[in-house]
């Protein structure tokens, strides 16, 4: 595993690089392989759809790309940072800064306003007026 920190300086054209990623789950005595050596790249500024039948490993791959889970082997580099080499807190901080989730049911926090829901990742670090203005603008 390499250095998890992103390189400083200019942005690379490849924003996501997945290399030979494998993910296996143990079900009793049996080991089930959800992903078998997945590799691909996503260029900066492009969109990607992952399509496949139920049980083909789409969700598992998304969890790994979202730094929510770790692969059994292989590496995932996002915006220059090797997320497969990160510990839990590094993963949390990475998600806060780089990853956004849209759940099927939205899962908004009911006690918070729309702006505060947008700002949810930054509540623990403190919200500045600039943050609020940016969130309001995005909405």
């Amino acid at each position, binding site marked *: 595993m390499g250095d998890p920190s992103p390189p400083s300086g200019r942005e690379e054209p490849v924003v996501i690089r997945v290399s030979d990623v494998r993910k296996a789950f143990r079900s009793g005595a049996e080991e089930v392989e959800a992903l078998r050596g997945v590799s691909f790249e996503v260029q900066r500024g492009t969109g990607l759809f992952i399509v496949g039948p139920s049980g083909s490993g789409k969700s598992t791959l998304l*969890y790994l790309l979202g730094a*929510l*889970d770790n692969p059994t082997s292989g590496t995932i580099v996002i915006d220059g940072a090797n997320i497969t080499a990160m510990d*839990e807190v590094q993963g949390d*901080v990475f*998600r806060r800064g780089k990853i956004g989730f849209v759940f099927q049911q939205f899962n908004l926090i009911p*006690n918070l306003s729309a702006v505060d829901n947008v700002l*949810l990742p930054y509540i*623990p670090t403190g919200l500045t007026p600039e943050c609020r203005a940016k969130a309001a603008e995005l909405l």
Partner: protein
Amino acid sequence: MWRFASLNLITRPLRTLLAVVGLTIPIVAILGLFSLTQGIRSLMGNTLSRMAGLIVMRADAPAPVFSELPAGLVDEIQKVPGVRIVAPEVWRIAPPIEGRNLLARAAAKALTSRGDERFSSFAETIMLEGEQLPEHLLLRGGAFRHSLLPPQRGGGRYLLDTDVGRPHVVISTKIARDYPNADGTPKKVGDRLLIGGKPFQIVGLYQTGSLMIDETIVMEITTARELLGIDRKQVSAFYVEPDPQTDIDALERAITRAVANVQVRSMSQFNVQVGNIMGHLDLFLVLTVGLALLVGGVGIANTMLMSAVERTVEFGVMRANGWTRRNILGLVTAESALLGLLSGLVGTGLAIAAIAALNSILVRYELRLELTVPLVAARNAVAIAVASLAGLYPAWRASRMTPMDAIRNEAS
């Protein structure tokens, strides 16, 4: 974070209210009970600190009013090294005052009254003390003499040598209020007070502020003996004032050795005993209230645990959005601490109101519940600490949620 924690409590008002009530009850109990012991402690302390000497009375008598000793013992006690003054005195429960039989009245009231009226009947039992002059006038202590009201407030004077054999009394302002003139005004210096059917002239008014002392009528000893039918060779007790450098405990032992069939009680001994009793009472209160706090804490823990279970998806979403386990732990603990703070504030408010109401009733007994700032501050700190501790386990449970929990719960 704190704003978010507050919102989480505000948006679940019923649950918050129930948790706060659970912790508020022990807080009110603690503040109320400790302010009561504080009040009793200062009352006893004020009373006993006025009497720095020793009381010599019959060996088996529980109190001076039940004690009888030969007056001649004064010479034996005076010979004990370290004794400065021996002041003979007689003590009895007062005969009917203004035609009112105190004991009969107290018993009748106790049988027919309710609540504080029943209590008041016994608190109003008046004692009568006859002081031998000039010995009592030479005492440096002397609770009544030093508590005489100033002349401008109608305090009059204390007993003098010229009062020997004369029907003159010094009474407390409380007795003056409790046995008013026919027009309802309190007795004042110069007025007459009927004691055992005989008229006495009030020459002085005192006010010690102590429940124990302010129920005493003071007169000269020969006048008291004549009124109460006590032989002139008899006293109830001797008040002994030690020389300034004398060790009071050593003097107490010396008198007990030198004089047969007497017991010697020092006021410091009473003070220590009272201190011990209050200490035990405090310990008992701490244990009792500790249990109540535990129950309140369990209530908070239950509330927060339910909240954590209900908010599984919410915590998962937060974790997915970059909240660390420590952030979640901090949020839930902050919510618990806010519940504790809220309970503390509500409890303090209720306790202040309850104590003010009680004090307005207890003022007639010269007893005052004391709610001190350190007590309130300490209690609120305990409330916050208990609530925070109670919230730790639910907070830990919540922090164990993984981002995957949100997605799985969403799917289910």
